[in-house]
């Protein structure tokens, strides 16, 4: 196809897409004027029904708990696939990565960065736990809290504590945490079959809305997702960082 033809095809397509977008946008409800039955019902009923004051958590872990299970498996498969790909590559090389510039030492880590990062590790970890545990009460939850948790070991890496990082995040327990989180979600779902009527039925005692221990399986599922996300993300990062770690720790000696 000539470049003139290609441009013509693009312009026709772009004009058609713009028309369709304008047409679709014109049919949207007015900005800020929400009238959908599903959302209005949830707003009116969900706190009394699920005892979770965060309606978003009530939807993702109770009404639509099965969708979240699917999302969790997507994450599981993604981390597994990445780890598999990177590991195969490492075996192919067979020899550990070589320091290409042995005469040049990595720049000295700044003391300020080091102290700040290491000082932040504990507060960030606590904050992550807080976000996971309060997922059913306030914005946040297992996914968001899990990512915050995963940044704690990352801060150690930025702070330059490579050896500390390896002792804090050995691979086997990480895999255990990730597997326990993903499997735990399914087990909690099965508890619905045991105590209630169907898979992921929220059949545990729900307690009072607003308490930390309340809303039945929503809290439990948040904990499971938090474990799976934190474990999975740290695993992913260590897979990527592995080679850099080997190099840096060697040149530090």
């Amino acid at each position: 196809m000539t470049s003139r033809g290609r441009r013509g095809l693009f312009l026709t397509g772009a004009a058609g897409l713009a028309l369709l977008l304008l047409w679709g946008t014109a049919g949207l409800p007015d900005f800020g004027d929400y009238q959908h039955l599903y959302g209005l019902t949830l707003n009116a009923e969900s706190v009394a029904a699920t005892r979770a004051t965060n309606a978003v958590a009530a939807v993702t872990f109770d009404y639509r708990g099965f969708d979240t299970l699917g999302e969790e498996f997507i994450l599981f498969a993604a981390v597994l696939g990445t780890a598999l790909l990177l590991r195969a590559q490492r075996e192919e090389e067979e020899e550990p990565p070589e320091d290409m510039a042995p005469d040049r030492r990595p720049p000295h880590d700044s003391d300020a960065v080091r102290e700040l990062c290491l000082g932040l590790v504990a507060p960030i970890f606590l904050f992550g736990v807080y976000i996971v545990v309060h997922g059913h009460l306030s914005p946040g939850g297992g996914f968001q809290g899990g990512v915050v948790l995963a940044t704690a070991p990352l801060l150690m890496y930025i702070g330059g504590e490579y050896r500390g990082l390896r002792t804090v995040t050995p691979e086997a327990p990480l895999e255990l945490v990730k597997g326990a989180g993903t499997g735990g979600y399914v087990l909690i779902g099965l508890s619905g079959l045991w105590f209630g009527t169907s898979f992921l039925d929220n059949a545990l005692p729900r307690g009072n809305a607003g308490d930390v221990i309340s809303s039945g399986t929503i809290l439990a599922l948040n904990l499971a997702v938090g474990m799976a996300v934190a474990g999975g993300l740290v695993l992913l990062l260590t897979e990527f960082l592995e080679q850099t770690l080997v190099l840096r720790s060697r040149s530090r000696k």
Partner: protein
Amino acid sequence: MDATAILQAFVLLLVAATATGVILTRDPLAQAITVSFFGLLLAIAFLAFQAPDVALSAIAVGAVALPLMILLALAKIRGGAE
């Protein structure tokens, strides 16, 4: 127009501007930085639209995890090529 609507329009314009900036950045390494900035602004936009749950996810994924993955992948590719 009330204050909230002005704020929302302002943030949306900023998001559109940074998104264009990300596309116009040609160097992948620099793009990791601009995409992180874009993720942060997107999170602020979600906050302005009263969706704090989504904002938290956007900060975690858009401003931290995604740029980090790009940086690490670049480091791995370039480390192998040199």
